[in-house]
């Protein structure tokens, strides 16, 4: 019996200090933004991607992503027609500085930009023990850096490798779909800087969004559909060899 009380006594002051900052101030989102009017996702058009790495660099600049960690990255696939299940994949420094020149051979090449899929049934938010990561009412999967324990359970639970533990803040970190931009009517940093339009921010609740026409007329797939995560990063022209 002594133990629990002693523990509480030790933990109380520490917790009180930590909570002070959490309780302080609740800044409002942009006044004309209504969360329930949106359901955000991303369209990634693989045939348009040239592997320049603009999105990776822009994301790192916009969001101060620490070196060696990635909220978005680009992979280059090199697939032989005989062994589709064993592609050669590279992503040097996440494709931040582009890719080495490839020589023509008998296999096919293509680039695949990756990022958080902002899953509707996200396995990462499911496992968070304290409610520090969540699917916001507008469909964006976010991390509350003031509440996260840094247990890394969510990193383990993400099938796509989209999360990491921030080396300085020691909390889980990931793509916010540039939440600070999209709530102000801007597009994401990666979309803004993509020179070929291979990435497009989409709002599935906006009836005027061209995504609806696109989904209707193109064969579109999500990554690892067998995971049934309700992923909202839609890929056009996704090859079966992509993991």
């Amino acid at each position, binding site marked *: *019996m*002594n*133990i*629990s009380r002693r523990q509480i006594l030790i*933990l109380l002051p*520490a*917790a009180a*200090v*930590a909570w002070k900052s959490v309780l302080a101030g609740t800044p409002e989102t942009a006044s004309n933004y209504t969360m329930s009017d949106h359901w955000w996702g991303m369209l990634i058009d693989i045939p348009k991607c040239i592997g320049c790495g603009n999105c990776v660099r822009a994301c790192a600049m916009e969001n101060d992503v620490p070196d*060696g*960690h*990635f909220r978005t*990255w680009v*992979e280059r696939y090199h697939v032989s027609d005989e062994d589709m*299940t*064993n*592609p*050669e*994949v*590279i*992503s040097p*420094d*996440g494709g931040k500085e582009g890719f080495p020149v490839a020589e023509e051979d008998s296999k096919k090449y293509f680039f695949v930009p*990756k990022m958080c899929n902002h899953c509707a049934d996200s*396995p990462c938010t*499911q*496992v*968070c*023990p*304290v*409610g*520090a990561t969540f699917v916001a009412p507008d469909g964006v999967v976010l991390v509350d850096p003031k*509440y*996260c*324990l*840094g*247990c*890394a*359970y969510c*990193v*383990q*639970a*993400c*099938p*796509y*490798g*989209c*999360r*990491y*533990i921030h080396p300085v*803040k*020691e*909390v889980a970190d990931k793509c916010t779909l540039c939440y600070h931009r999209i709530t102000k009517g801007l597009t994401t940093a990666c979309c803004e800087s993509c020179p070929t339009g291979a990435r497009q921010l989409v709002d599935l609740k906006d009836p005027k969004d061209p995504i609806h026409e696109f989904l209707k007329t193109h064969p579109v797939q999500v990554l690892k559909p067998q*995971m049934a995560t309700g992923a909202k990063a839609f890929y056009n022209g996704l090859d079966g060899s992509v*993991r």
Partner: protein
Amino acid sequence: MSGVEGFMYPNEYGLQWSILIVLYPYITGLVAGAFILASLERVFHVEAVKPTYRLALLTALAFLIVAPLPLQLHLGHPERSPEMYFTPHSTSAMAMFGYVYLWYLMAVLVLEIWLDYRREIVLLSQSSKGLLRVIYRIMTLGSSNISERSLAIDNRAGWIVTVIGIPSAFILHGYVGFIFGSIKANPWWSSPLMPVVFIFSAMVSGIACVMVLYMAITKLRKQSIDMRCVDTVAMYLFYVFIIDFSLEMLDLIHRVYEADESFRSLNFLVHTQLYIPHIVIQIFLGTLTPIILLGITQVVHLPEVVRKRMYATAGCLTLIGIFAMRWNVVIGGQLFSKSFLGYTTYKIGLVSKEGLLVAVFLTILPLFILWALIKLLPPWPANTAQAPAAGD
């Protein structure tokens, strides 16, 4: 990035969970297993194991106190860990585990030990002096009623607590298994068998731990080992081990036969990086060897000295084997990419926050706590003359 072979998602190069997370299921496993052994005497009236009853309870408590420490050290923000209790997320196995842990610590272990020792605590609070007297006084909770009737009530209550305690111990360690088994993103972990395997391996490690501790402590106390007791404990260890091994093999055979998309990747891992810890240490050294040793003692009638040595060897190998099993689950599950196209390596630091020295310290710490607990609450009659003189 050095240590990476093939392709990994760029955020996967480093391991998220270190040796401390290996220790955590290992330690909780010892707790659950030791408690199950203690319950044999209490609920199932296996009189032979009585000499280990109190030792098993104290062992469980010593390890349970240490169990959350590796987790705390691993957290990026340990000061926020009370959030697990204040706002537990109902869909998270880890959050529920916080409550299971507290329930098990307070409502089962501490209560059962208190009830079982209450007579001694009251007597000691009257006979001891100084600080110890104060400690014992607090532990009596201000009640010095040790009438026959009250002790009978304690006995009854203790029985009920043990009956509740058995499923609680299963839940305690089953939940640890579920934390891993429920991660669909990781095929090395994702398996409904995981909690069951964890429960049985917990029983194996806990029983082996108490058996080794009993033999070692009795030796240190220069008392004779109660062979009827150790024989019985070893017999239970043998049978539980067979169930545990069968379950693990079932899991393995199932994986090999189904050979799903992750198989090529995992198969490669088991034949390379995990070959020593998985095949050699876990399966051959830590499982088959002790099973064979224990099996021989069940079949052949051997002299006492030989049996003791075989039990001690089997017990120690079992503890190594179960540790290897935890290692292979926790570390092994992070060595391959979720793209199934590459592998990384785990480099363990020596003096870092999650390094080897900390891990060794945390492994030894429960033994010191156990030593203190034994001093405070002696598991055997103070009068050594009462100890059984049989054997040796």
